[in-house]
């Protein structure tokens, strides 16, 4: 049985920090289809529309009937562990640094056999639960755990390389003055975070949420204004090498469109906070986190952005806000590429309208921060890369894949 991870000690300052390395990288274009499913937390494989065969690994043609009619479909994630082995040696630097490493071959209930990264709790002949995970290089891999969850399965060090369970980790929540900031702090603490750093800007604006955060244990609050490079640099100098999960929940929504509320200043503020704010955070914290990406129990692991689902499609009722979110989303893709060499993964979550003072007249459904914060943390801990939350975000994804023009013409608050 996997043992519970002990509370990490402070970093030993005499020991050279392990340099980040990556598992082997290149994948075929077809294999990237797996990544698309893994990014959403789905267990989906190629299914042949002609003969019904499920195949793995992904290919251009059906391995059984040579048909080109392959589609990605959610399938059962159950299987049986046929064989297991433990790597004691590897010529690959990434694995060599992390030996021993457990691998197995699983025969999936839907047919194919797969080489998997294996939880220490699985034994030959066991029924297992499969998942598509994303490894430190950003590629989709198959992982297997016991069919029924075991008590410490999240503590498996090998699988922790691919997931971001907050247990014993230290997140920085950028904006502690919103209800979302408070609820995220609570959600990280209840998920076992070792300590939560929380930022706040403009101290002269009181915030009941920040006051509540200050009363919580294992929390420290720091001045942090993402519109001010000096402020971000100052915080990096204090806690930059301790932030293991960055939680960018910067939020500045002002309702209005382009012509309907032509105001460069308001649009500027949205860009300052969402786009340049992400840039300042990434420019200052990014290099430190990238360098600390393989530091054992103190590794920087993930960069979580909380975006609006309107980053995908402009909602004219909040037109300039949507544009600033789209800009930030684009920048996050650049950040993802730049953090990958450090093994730090960028996770984006997309939410619909929330119940707050800036959505007073927006019709329901509106999301409650207390409801969505635990879902964000749970998505993060599963290693999902794109986490849509709530009916609005999920509907936008669905309609975008069906007909982007239809949603462009009809979207409204």
């Amino acid at each position: 049985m996997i043992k519970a991870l002990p509370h990490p000690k402070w970093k030993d300052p005499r020991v050279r920090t392990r340099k980040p390395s990556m598992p082997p990288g290149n994948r075929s274009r077809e294999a990237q289809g797996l990544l698309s499913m893994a990014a959403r937390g789905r267990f989906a494989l190629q299914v042949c529309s002609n003969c019904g065969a499920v195949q793995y690994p992904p290919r251009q043609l059906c391995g059984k009937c040579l048909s080109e009619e392959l589609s990605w479909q959610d399938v059962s994630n159950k299987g049986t562990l046929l064989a297991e082995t433990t790597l004691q040696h590897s010529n690959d630097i990434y694995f060599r640094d992390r030996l021993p490493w457990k691998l197995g071959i699983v025969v999936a209930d839907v047919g194919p056999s797969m080489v998997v990264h294996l939880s220490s709790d699985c034994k030959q002949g066991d029924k297992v639960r499969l998942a598509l995970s994303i490894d430190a290089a950003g590629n989709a891999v198959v992982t297997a755990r016991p069919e029924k969850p075991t008590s410490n399965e999240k503590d498996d060090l090998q699988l922790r390389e691919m997931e971001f369970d907050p247990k014993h980790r230290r997140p920085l929540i950028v904006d502690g003055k919103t209800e979302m900031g408070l609820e995220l702090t609570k959600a990280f603490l209840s998920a076992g975070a070792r300590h939560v750093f929380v930022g706040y800007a403009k101290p002269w604006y009181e915030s009941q949420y920040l006051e509540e955060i200050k009363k919580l244990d294992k929390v420290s609050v720091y001045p942090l204004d993402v519109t001010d490079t000096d402020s971000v640099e100052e915080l990096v100098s204090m806690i930059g090498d301790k932030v293991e999960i960055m939680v960018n929940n910067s939020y500045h929504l002002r309702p209005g469109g382009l012509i309907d509320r032509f105001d460069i200043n308001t649009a500027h503020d949205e860009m300052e906070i969402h786009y340049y704010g992400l840039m300042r955070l990434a420019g200052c914290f990014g290099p430190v986190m990238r360098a600390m990406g393989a530091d054992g129990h103190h590794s920087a692991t993930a960069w979580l952005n909380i975006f609006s689902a309107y980053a995908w499609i402009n909602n004219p009722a909040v037109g300039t806000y949507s544009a600033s979110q789209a800009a930030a989303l684009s920048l996050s893709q650049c950040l993802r590429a730049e953090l990958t060499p450090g093994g730090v993964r960028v996770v984006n979550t997309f939410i619909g309208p929330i119940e707050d003072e800036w959505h007073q007249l927006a019709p329901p459904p509106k999301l409650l921060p207390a409801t969505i914060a635990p879902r964000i943390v749970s998505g993060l801990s599963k290693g999902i890369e794109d986490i849509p939350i709530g009916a609005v975000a999920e509907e936008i994804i669905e309609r975008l894949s069906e007909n982007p023009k239809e949603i462009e013409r009809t979207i409204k608050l």
Partner: protein
Amino acid sequence: MEKKQNENEETLSSLLGGIINGGIQVIDLTMTLDQRTPTIVLPPEHGQSWPFRLEVISKYDERGPATYWNNMSCGEHTGTHFDAPIHWISGKDLPNNATDTLPPDLFIAHASVIDVSLETKEDPDYLLTIERIEEWEKINGNIPVRSWVLMRTDWSKKTNPTEYLNHGDEGANTPGPHPDLIPWLIEERDVVGFGSETVGTDAGQAAHFSHPFPCHHLMHGAGRCGLPALINLDLLPAQGAVVVAAPLKIRQGSGSPVRALALVGK
């Protein structure tokens, strides 16, 4: 004519001599423009003034090996600044009401410094009244024509932005002029304008006066100016200092950060 010119040249020369030999002290009335400088708090759905921000263009690095310089941004009314009459709706149609058209001789004027630091220590909502100034005039003589009236409260010694803005759930609690004082200063004393140590020239609760924001509405309506967020007023004499405070020449500017200086004879 020539004799007069000579006299003026001598005046200037002796002024400079005084500054050089220290007989005339130059006192800086300006707060440092800093990213932490708070701007005025307004309802969030209103337009907002940008805070002071600085981004490095280059610092002897690959962006410019020999050069250090920054891009900066801020609202016109940031830090120690100048309020031109066009800033308020009441002054919008006046001639020469903006930073580029105000006559530049206005930027050098006498200062009458009214010390109410004891009163404001007791009461952050303290309002400066005609009676209080009349009392001051009994000791210091009348406010001369074309003078700044500077309200010394020692408020600028509050270095914590939250204490400086002093906001409660009914707005700011900061001192300023009583609404009755403003017409009196304009009509009876013909002042250049009103200066303060707080974030604006009006009191924190001025929105609720029977005549809201009198130091903006009435002063600017009469073509007079404002000089808020001053510091070091405690180093000035009650009468006799000369203030030099020129706004940037922004086309149709409503104000600008200034480097406000006071010349004080020792």
